[in-house]
C-alpha cells in the first residue's frame, strides 16, 4: 500500500468499495479458510499454504482468478477446520492437508467432494452452511460477516460496505442524532451488565470535562468463552468502526482497546487493522474530509480477570494495579485519568455499524422488547455441537442446546447449563424453556454475562462445579474488600469440607449467609455476582448438597474423596490390563482370576476404568463410603 491509497472523501470510499466488488466478482473461485482459534489449533494454517501450493502447481497465473482468504471464526469449532468454496458456497468440514488437492481440482471443475460435506441424521450430505442445523437456527448478523473477510485485509471489509456507516455518521448525522438512534435501537451492553448503550453515551457526552476517552473492553476472561475474541480476531474493523462512531457521538478523539495479552492473534490482527485503517486515512486527522480526528491505542492486559471491570480497567490503563475503585461517581463522568470515559464491550461496538446502516427499527425487530438484537454465546461443555452461536434474544435455552447444540453428548441426561461465566449461575432442566434475555436470566438467579454457556450432563457434581467456579473467582479477586476476599476464602473452606465428606449441618446456612454478605456488601461486581453459582446450585440442586453432607455420597460420582473404585468379581476376566496401568500398584490379583483394588492405596485417578476393556467393564465407581469403610448407598451404578 502506498500513501496514494488514502481515502479522502465519502465518494472515494464508495468508489473503492465498488472497484473491490468488481474485482472480487471477476474471480472464478474463492476459498475461505477458517483461521479462528479452534481451527488454527487443528492446523488450518497448513490448509492455506496447501491451497497456495496447488495454485502454483496448476500454473494459474492470473493473480485475481482465485482468492484465498483466512477468515475469522465460523463458529462451528467442533467440526474444524472449515473451508468454504465460493461462488457455490460449498462448505467442507474437518478438512485435512491431504484433502486439499482433491478439493482444489474438483473446485476448478465446479464439482463437490462429498465425503467432506456435513451429513445430517440420515446421512444425507448438505452443501451450504446455512442449511446445516447448527447454523439454520441461528441469526448471524455479526458472525456471518466473517465468512468473506480476510481478517488481515481491510479491503475485504470495505468491499462489504465497511466504514460506510462511519461515513454516513460523519456526513449526515449530528452526535445527538447518533445517540438517539442507538437509544432507539434498544442496544444494551453486551459485556454482562446490560446497561443501555445510548444512555451511557449520552451521559459521557453531557459530562462537562474534556478530553473524553472511549474504550473497547476486550478483556474476556471467562473460562471457555471466546465471543469477543471471535469478533475482534475475525472482523477487527467492525469494532474499530463502531468505536469511531461512538467517539464521534460522545465527542472523543482518543480511544483505547484493552485486550488480553493471552490472545496473541487478536492483538496481531488488531494492530494490523489499525495500521491499515491509518494508511487509508480512516484513523487519524480529518477522517474522510469531515474534520473529525481520532486515534486508537492498543493496551495489552497483564492477565487479570477483574480488570474487565470498568473501574479496574481504567486503573490498569493508567498504569496501576487493576483494582476496582469506589464507583459512586460513574466512569462516564470521571474515569480514565479522571476524565469522562465511555467503556463498551467488543460485541456492543460491533453492533453499532449495523444499527447505523440498517436503522434502529431493523435492530429492534430482533429479540424481545427489553433485550433487542442478537447475542453471541460460546456454547461449550457436554453438548454435541460446540462453538460460537449467534441467536436472537428471547430464544429459549432448549432451542440453543437441542436445536443448535444438537443435544447432549453421548445421549446422556441433561443436568444444568451455566450461563454468564463464573459470575453466572446454573439453570436446571425445568427452566430450559426460559427465554434468553437480560432480565429473564437474572430472574432465574443467573445472568447473561458476556455469553459463556457451559452445558453439564448427569456426570457433573453440582457441589464440585460450584467449588470450581468459586476457586476461579477467589484466585481472580483483587483481594481489596473484606466480604469478597474473606467471604470467598471461607466459602472455599466450606466447599472443601463438604467435598471431603466432612460437611456439617450448619454449612448450608453458612453458605447462604455468606452469599448474602457478598451480594450486598462487596465493592465491585465480581463480589456481588460471585454468590450466583452458590445460590443457584443450592436452590435447584439442594439434594446433592444434602447427599454429600448427610450420606457422604456424591450422586454424580465426581468428588474423589467420596467414591471408591470396585472391581466386579463376576465381570472381571483377570486380563491384568488394569494391574499394569495402575500408577500406584493398588490392583492385585492373579492372571485369569478376578482382581481386587486396595482402597487404602488407590488414588482414584480413574486410569483403570478407562483401561478396562469394554467387553468386561468390570470396574465401577461407588459412592457412599462411610467412615468405617463400608459401602452404602447405591448397589448398582
Amino acid at each position, binding site marked *: 500500500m502506498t500513501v496514494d491509497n488514502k481515502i479522502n472523501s465519502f465518494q472515494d470510499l464508495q468508489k473503492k468499495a465498488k472497484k473491490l466488488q468488481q474485482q472480487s466478482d471477476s474471480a472464478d473461485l474463492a476459498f475461505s479458510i477458517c483461521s479462528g482459534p479452534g481451527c488454527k489449533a487443528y492446523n488450518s494454517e497448513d490448509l492455506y499454504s496447501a491451497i497456495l501450493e496447488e495454485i502454483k502447481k496448476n500454473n494459474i497465473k492470473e493473480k485475481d482468478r482465485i482468492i484465498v482468504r483466512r477468515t475469522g471464526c465460523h463458529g462451528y469449532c467442533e467440526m474444524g477446520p472449515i473451508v468454504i468454496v465460493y461462488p457455490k458456497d460449498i462448505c467442507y468440514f474437518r478438512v485435512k492437508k491431504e484433502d486439499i488437492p482433491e478439493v482444489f481440482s474438483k473446485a476448478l471443475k465446479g464439482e463437490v467432494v462429498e465425503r467432506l460435506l456435513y451429513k445430517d441424521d440420515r446421512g444425507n450430505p448438505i452443501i451450504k452452511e446455512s442449511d446445516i442445523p447448527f447454523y439454520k437456527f441461528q441469526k448471524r448478523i455479526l458472525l456471518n460477516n466473517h465468512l468473506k473477510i480476510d481478517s488481515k485485509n481491510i479491503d475485504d471489509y470495505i468491499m462489504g460496505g465497511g466504514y460506510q456507516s462511519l461515513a454516513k455518521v460523519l456526513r449526515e448525522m449530528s452526535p445527538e442524532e447518533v445517540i438517539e438512534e442507538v437509544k432507539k435501537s434498544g442496544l444494551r451492553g453486551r459485556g454482562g451488565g446490560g446497561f443501555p448503550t445510548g444512555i451511557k453515551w449520552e451521559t459521557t457526552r453531557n459530562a462537562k470535562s474534556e478530553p473524553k476517552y472511549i474504550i473497547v473492553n476486550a478483556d474476556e476472561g471467562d473460562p471457555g468463552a471466546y465471543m469477543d475474541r471471535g469478533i475482534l480476531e475475525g472482523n477487527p474493523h467492525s469494532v474499530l468502526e463502531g468505536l469511531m462512531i461512538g467517539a464521534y457521538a460522545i465527542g472523543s478523539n482518543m480511544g483505547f482497546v484493552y485486550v488480553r495479552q493471552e490472545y496473541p492473534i487478536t492483538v496481531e490482527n488488531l494492530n494490523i487493522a489499525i495500521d491499515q485503517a491509518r494508511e487509508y486515512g480512516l484513523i487519524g486527522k480529518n477522517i474522510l474530509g469531515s474534520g473529525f480526528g481520532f486515534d486508537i491505542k492498543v493496551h495489552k492486559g497483564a492477565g487479570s480477570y477483574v480488570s474487565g471491570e470498568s473501574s479496574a480497567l481504567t486503573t490498569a490503563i493508567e498504569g496501576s494495579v487493576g483494582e476496582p475503585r469506589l464507583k459512586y461517581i*460513574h466512569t462516564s463522568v470521571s474515569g480514565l485519568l479522571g476524565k469522562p470515559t465511555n467503556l463498551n464491550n467488543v460485541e456492543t461496538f460491533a453492533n453499532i455499524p449495523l444499527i447505523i446502516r440498517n436503522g434502529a427499527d431493523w435492530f429492534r425487530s430482533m429479540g424481545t422488547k427489553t433485550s433487542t438484537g442478537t447475542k453471541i454465546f460460546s456454547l461449550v461443555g457436554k453438548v454435541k455441537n460446540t462453538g460460537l452461536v449467534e441467536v436472537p434474544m428471547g430464544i429459549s435455552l432448549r432451542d440453543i442446546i437441542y436445536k443448535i447444540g444438537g443435544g447432549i453428548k453421548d445421549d446422556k441426561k441433561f443436568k444444568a447449563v451455566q450461563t454468564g461465566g463464573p459470575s453466572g449461575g446454573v439453570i436446571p432442566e425445568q427452566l430450559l424453556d426460559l427465554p434468553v434475555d437480560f432480565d429473564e436470566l437474572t430472574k432465574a438467579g443467573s445472568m447473561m454475562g458476556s455469553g459463556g454457556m457451559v452445558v453439564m450432563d448427569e456426570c457433573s457434581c453440582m457441589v464440585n462445579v460450584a467449588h470450581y467456579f468459586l476457586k476461579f473467582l477467589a484466585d481472580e479477586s483483587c483481594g481489596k474488600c473484606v*466480604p469478597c476476599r474473606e467471604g470467598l476464602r*471461607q466459602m472455599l*473452606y466450606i466447599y472443601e469440607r463438604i467435598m471431603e465428606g466432612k460437611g456439617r449441618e450448619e454449612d448450608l446456612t453458612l453458605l447462604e449467609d455468606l452469599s448474602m454478605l457478598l451480594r450486598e456488601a462487596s465493592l465491585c461486581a465480581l463480589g456481588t455476582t460471585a454468590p450466583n453459582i452458590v445460590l443457584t446450585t443450592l436452590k435447584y440442586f439442594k439434594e446433592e448438597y444434602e447427599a454429600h453432607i448427610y450420606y457422604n455420597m456424591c450422586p454424580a460420582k465426581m468428588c474423589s474423596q467420596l467414591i471408591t473404585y470396585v472391581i466386579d468379581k463376576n465381570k472381571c476376566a483377570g486380563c491384568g490390563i488394569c494391574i499394569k496401568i495402575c500408577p500406584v500398584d493398588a490392583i492385585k490379583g492373579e492372571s485369569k482370576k478376578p482382581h481386587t483394588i486396595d482402597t487404602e492405596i488407590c488414588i482414584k485417578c480413574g486410569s483403570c476404568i478407562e483401561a478396562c476393556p469394554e467387553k468386561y467393564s468390570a470396574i465401577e465407581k461407588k459412592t457412599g463410603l462411610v467412615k468405617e469403610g463400608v459401602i452404602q448407598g447405591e448397589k448398582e451404578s
Partner: protein
Amino acid sequence: MNDKKVDTNRKKINLTIDDKKIEINDGDTILQAAKKIGIHIPTLCYNEKIKPHGACRLCLVEIEKRGRSKIVASCAYPAEEGLMVKTESPGVEKIRKNLVELYLALFPFNPEIKKLARKYKLTRSRFKKENNYCILCGLCVRYCREVKGYNAVGFAGRGTDKKVVFIPESSYFKYCEKCMECMNICPTGVFPSNYGLARIPQINK
C-alpha cells in the same frame, strides 16, 4: 446523576441521617456528615488524612434516593441534596453482623470489632480461624504513599493470597526508622511486628 464533585463555590446541601437533618458542604461524604452531628458509623480502613479506600465495608449505610434504597460505603459516597440515610437499618445491621463474624475469624482483638461483636451478641465465629491477623485495610500502604510519599510498604499478590509487604529495596526504606508513623495507624497491631521481620536482613548486615 451528580455531575460534579467540583468544590468551587462549596454549595450547601441538606440531607437526613437517621431522622436528623443536617446542612453540609457539597462534596462531603456521608461519613463526614454523620460525624458532624455525632452519629457514629464504624470504620476500620478509614483515616481522615487519606483518600477513602472502601475495603472494610463496616461503614455501609442504606440510602434512599428517588424512592429506591441502596447500600453504599459511607466513607466515599458523596452526600447529595435530599438524601435519606439510615446507618442502622435492618439491612445494614444484617450485613454488619455477618461482616463482624467474618472479622472475628480474622482479627478478633480490634476494639471496634469487639464492640460490635458485643452489640450483635456474637461470642464465637462460625467461620474457620485464619492465622493471618492482617485485614488488608491498606492504611499503612496508603498512608506511606499519600501522606509521606515514600512507598516503602505495598501490596503483593491478589485475591486470597494478597498481603502487605515491606519493600526493603525501596530507596525510602531507610527513612522508616525515623518515620514510624504508620505503626500507630494499624488497626490490628500486626503491622509493627511485620516491620521487625522485614528488617531482619538489614540487622544481620
